[in-house]
């Protein structure tokens, strides 16, 4: 009978941490801790900074007061309202949107083996835009009342990714190239639908609203079911993708490698598509189409902690959340009292970042 014991034990000297992984784990854990601290400070500053400055110490006292159920004493009520009712939901939305877009971008880059992939690769943003345009321009409410805009955007996003999935799947297989091309094609087609809706409505005001929505904004943030749903979905996505880290590593190498390691590439890709579509759909419905986060942040995360997804996914989540918080702060503050669409800031900050990374990534070529 064959035996599996063909590997001689290592010498005692090298047997403790033979791959140097413990050292790397310590280092990466330190990086993640630092990123968490930066995110926490950014969140407090995000609540503190605004047309009315609230001291960070007061912000913390108000937050602690609300969380423990014993309101902080000696602070005026307007500060409390600004912190708790106005700015905190917006900061939480920014954290959720940034983290979600970043991890979905990382997963898609692995899934189609292309560093240019981003969460909108699958036509999700175009589908959501078409849905949103139908609501803004023609008052399509689908009986959803005040959530009509978010609802139709979400349904548009899901319809687009379903379409991409069905078209890209041939003979029971989904390959990365086919997925990439189908996503691009469906994206163009649905962008045309949105443009047509804008054109057909003939409403300049409506066109402006659609445009604003396309560039993304966190201004609609408020406490309630949609915010809670988004945070739950994003948290679940971050956890699932972190748990799937090793499968993502394998799929990023190739379909053949994934198969050889006992991971059905088509089945895993389908699971990933479902998770990513849901997460991005919820995000787009809440905040419009904020570009660049999902493209740039995963690259930055990999530079900090390496390409193994066990580290790259959580690092992307933390970095994405921080990045979007600061982008939103700039969007709110730069042209006061007007608010810039956050998509403009994300692209303006993100593009030079990406150029810098590209130069660092391949110094020789």
């Amino acid at each position, binding site marked *: 009978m064959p035996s*599996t014991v063909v590997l*001689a034990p290592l010498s005692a000297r090298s047997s403790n941490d033979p791959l140097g992984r413990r050292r790397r784990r310590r280092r990466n854990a330190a990086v993640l801790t630092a990123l968490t601290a930066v995110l926490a400070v950014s969140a407090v500053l995000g609540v503190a900074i605004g047309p009315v400055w609230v001291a960070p110490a007061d912000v913390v006292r108000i937050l602690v007061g609300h969380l423990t159920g014993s309101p902080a004493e000696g602070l005026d009520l307007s500060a409390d309202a600004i912190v708790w009712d106005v700015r905190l939901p917006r900061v939480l939305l920014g954290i959720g949107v940034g983290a979600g877009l970043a991890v979905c971008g990382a997963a898609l880059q692995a899934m189609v083996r292309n560093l240019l992939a981003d969460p909108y690769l699958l036509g999700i943003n175009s589908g959501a835009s078409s849905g949103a345009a139908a609501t803004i321009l023609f008052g399509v409410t689908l009986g959803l009342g005040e959530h009509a805009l978010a609802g139709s955007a979400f349904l548009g996003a899901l319809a687009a990714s379903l379409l991409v999935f069905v078209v890209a799947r041939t003979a029971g297989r989904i390959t990365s190239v086919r997925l990439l091309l189908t996503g691009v094609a469906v994206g163009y087609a649905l962008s045309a639908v949105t443009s047509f809706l804008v054109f057909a409505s003939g409403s300049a005001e409506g066109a402006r609203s659609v445009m604003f929505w396309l560039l993304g904004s966190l201004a609609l943030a408020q406490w309630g079911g949609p915010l809670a749903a988004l945070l739950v979905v994003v948290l679940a996505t971050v956890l699932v993708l972190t748990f799937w880290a090793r499968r993502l590593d394998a799929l990023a190498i*190739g379909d053949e490698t994934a198969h050889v390691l006992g*991971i*059905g590439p088509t089945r895993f890709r389908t699971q990933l598509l479902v998770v990513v579509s849901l997460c991005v759909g919820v995000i787009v419905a809440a905040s419009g189409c904020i570009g660049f986060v999902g493209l740039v942040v995963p690259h930055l995360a990999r530079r900090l902690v390496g390409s193994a997804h066990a580290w790259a996914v959580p690092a992307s989540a933390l970095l994405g959340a921080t990045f979007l918080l600061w982008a939103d702060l700039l969007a709110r503050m730069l042209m006061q009292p007007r608010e810039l669409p956050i998509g403009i800031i994300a692209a303006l900050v993100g593009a030079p970042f990406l150029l810098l990374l590209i130069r660092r990534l391949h110094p020789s070529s």
Partner: protein
Amino acid sequence: MIRASGITFSYGTRSILSGIDLAAPHGQVLGLVGPNGSGKTTLLRTLHHALVPRTGSVLIDGDDLRRLSAREIARRISVVVQESPGDLPLLVSDMVLLGRTPHRSSFARAGAEDDQIAARALARVGALHLAATPFDGLSGGERQRVLIARALAQESTHLLLDEPTNHLDVRYQHEVLDLVRDLAVNAHHTVVVVLHDLNLAASYCDQVLLLHDGQVVARGAPDDVLTPEHLEPVYEVEVRRVALDDGFQLAFRPRRARADAPRSTPHTAPRPRSA
């Protein structure tokens, strides 16, 4: 042991394999040889269901592959495939640890035991010192050894290799095949290897299967299969066999044009079909 019977496979209407039987017992190295396009790589891929044959069945230790889950197949068969992470560079240690995937639930992280197994596998191929370096920066020979280490970390008892000596210099060609042969002889693993180099097949295989146009032309010990009578019609070259030490080596040269036929130039000479 791997036993395949009546394997047929086709891409669309183009038939690649027609009715192939194969038996690879424990403790032996089975070589698949044949010219480009003869179907040897396709055959290897059907043996671990990277391709599912149109008809016929593959049994591994008596169990039909169709009844085994992808993970169960990966626990029994490890395969050395040539794919590179490309744009998302992994460290060598991560690459080898991936071999532990079939043994862990998808939600479990690699533990200390996995580290030990991966490190031993790397030490076995003489590449432990590369553990903390990026896989992409390795030379061809180093990559090959790391991929074999990943297959070893999988701890399966069947090993499939597709042209493992590709792009390797002579020394590494022999090192890799020595390693593979050692697995068969000393650990009684089943090894199936696709080889282009017939002299390597002659030196390292217990059995060889000579394929041509998706069919088995000859099978048996290298001494019986790798003969001018079998090889000349398949490869369309002249073959000479020279006794060397206790084995033999093959030498090749183009077929001499017949005296009455017009001399063919390299431009008009029929080219071998490529894979």
